[in-house]
């Protein structure tokens, strides 16, 4: 094994072009587990820890450009108002020690269906900025996950940053596990209301070979909210609409039985989380609409 220590982003891209099998390591919270357990013996390990810009973020007009290695702790501390869904998801990641090291770039690189950031990214709307010596491209998050632990990156590409839309409405994140800390999601659910476009987006984790959106559920809810004038009148979402939304979210799952839970439990739990997060976000939306009246 060779240890590559690029001092700059350009050096890292050059090294990745020269050694496409090189495994990038930043927080190490995925890679080192595989090495410690002898599940992986990469020819080259490439430390990205010396590249300062990967640890920085920029808040723009419409979105946040989040450096690939910004630790979850920093997201929780600094980006809660811009990226509420991702901040909530970050808080469910493992433990303080892990959140101090791990970041969204690693979650995307590993592309585990159980990665905690994915449902939040899918719900908020995001693009992955991939770079190589050939240039830069932005991969829509919906096209990024291509299979179990597979993603759309080319062998010579590295993740430079993630571009995430700033929240224009309430966002929620929910995760099922046996305790609050140190849990790999049995399943997880992210929901974002986008009042500006009058749309709702979802993200489901650990309930399909890849993180997925519940598109049919989104379409149903978008139509139901529009039809009932809900965005304008701010009425309580009727239980039948919430139930239909939850059922469609369950139906979007394609889960497996494993040690963490059964497929049918996952389907059920995703439905429960969908209904709850819809209620939470909608109540919050109503609250901001009728700030003076409070959440009735």
């Amino acid at each position, binding site marked *: *094994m*060779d*240890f590559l*220590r690029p001092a700059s982003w350009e050096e890292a891209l050059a090294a990745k072009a020269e050694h496409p099998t090189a495994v990038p*390591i930043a*927080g*190490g*919270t995925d*890679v*080192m*587990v595989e*090495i*410690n*357990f002898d599940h992986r*013996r990469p020819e080259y*390990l490439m*430390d990205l*820890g010396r590249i300062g810009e990967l640890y920085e973020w920029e808040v723009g007009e419409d979105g946040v450009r989040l450096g690939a290695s910004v630790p979850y702790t920093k997201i929780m501390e600094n980006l809660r108002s811009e990226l509420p869904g991702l901040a909530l998801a970050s808080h469910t990641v*493992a*433990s*303080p*020690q*892990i959140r*101090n*090291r791990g970041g969204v770039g690693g979650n995307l690189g590993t592309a585990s269906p159980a990665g905690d950031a994915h449902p939040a990214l899918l719900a908020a709307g995001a693009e992955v900025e991939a770079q190589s010596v050939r240039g830069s491209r932005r991969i829509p998050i919906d096209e990024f996950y291509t299979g179990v632990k597979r993603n759309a990156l080319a062998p010579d590409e590295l993740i430079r940053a993630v571009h995430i839309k700033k929240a224009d409405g309430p966002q929620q994140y929910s995760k099922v596990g046996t305790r*609050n*800390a*140190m849990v790999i999601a049995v399943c997880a659910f992210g929901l974002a209301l986008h009042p500006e476009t009058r749309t709702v987006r979802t993200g489901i984790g650990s309930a399909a070979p890849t993180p997925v959106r519940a598109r049919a559920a989104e379409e149903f809810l978008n139509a139901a909210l529009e039809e009932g004038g809900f965005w304008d009148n701010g009425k309580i979402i009727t239980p039948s609409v919430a139930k239909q939304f939850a059922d469609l979210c369950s139906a979007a799952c394609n889960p497996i039985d494993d040690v963490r839970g059964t497929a049918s439990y996952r389907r059920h739990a995703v439905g429960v989380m969908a209904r709850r997060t819809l209620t939470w976000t909608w109540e919050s939306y109503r609250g901001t609409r009728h700030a003076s009246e409070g959440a009735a």
Partner: protein
Amino acid sequence: MRVNFTVNGRPQEADDVWEGESLLYVLRERLGLPGSKNACEQGECGSCTVRLDGVPVCSCLVAAGQVEGREVVTVEGLADYARQRSCGTGACGTSPDEARRWQAKGTDSGTGQSGAFPHATLSPIQQAFIDAGAVQCGFCTPGLLVAADEMLERNPNPTDADIREALSGNLCRCTGYEKIMDAVRLAAARQSEGV
């Protein structure tokens, strides 16, 4: 490969380090600092918690090559670290002269233990763990001490929820955590009283 970094305030050099080796392995097997414990090797248990440039991390998940030029504090250096911190803020009641003398001793003393226990005294959090009976088998203790000490540095008056959150990455299979909670509360109380 060779890795140069600072451990508990002293420059260290580790040779013939395998590229896939963890910081934990280097600390324990190459530098003779076995305080950080090796249990799960996957970041689940927190017993290998150290501070890397001040930040608590699982040393089993840090590749040795990643610490080149960086500063690590282990449980062995916790007493010194805590003392320097309180002296730095003038809260320790030690005169600057005394502090200087103590530091000089700390860097020079060749105890043969490679940086372990240059002084017999304990950090406040270590003393609190003893006083509260928070140590049973002791395997999880070093990681808990490092994590708890860092929290008290950041948050001198933690709520119970703050303590649970800060220690949520450290598993203990003996105590049921109640005595550990007592110990951290005790350390926080003593800290705020300036004891």
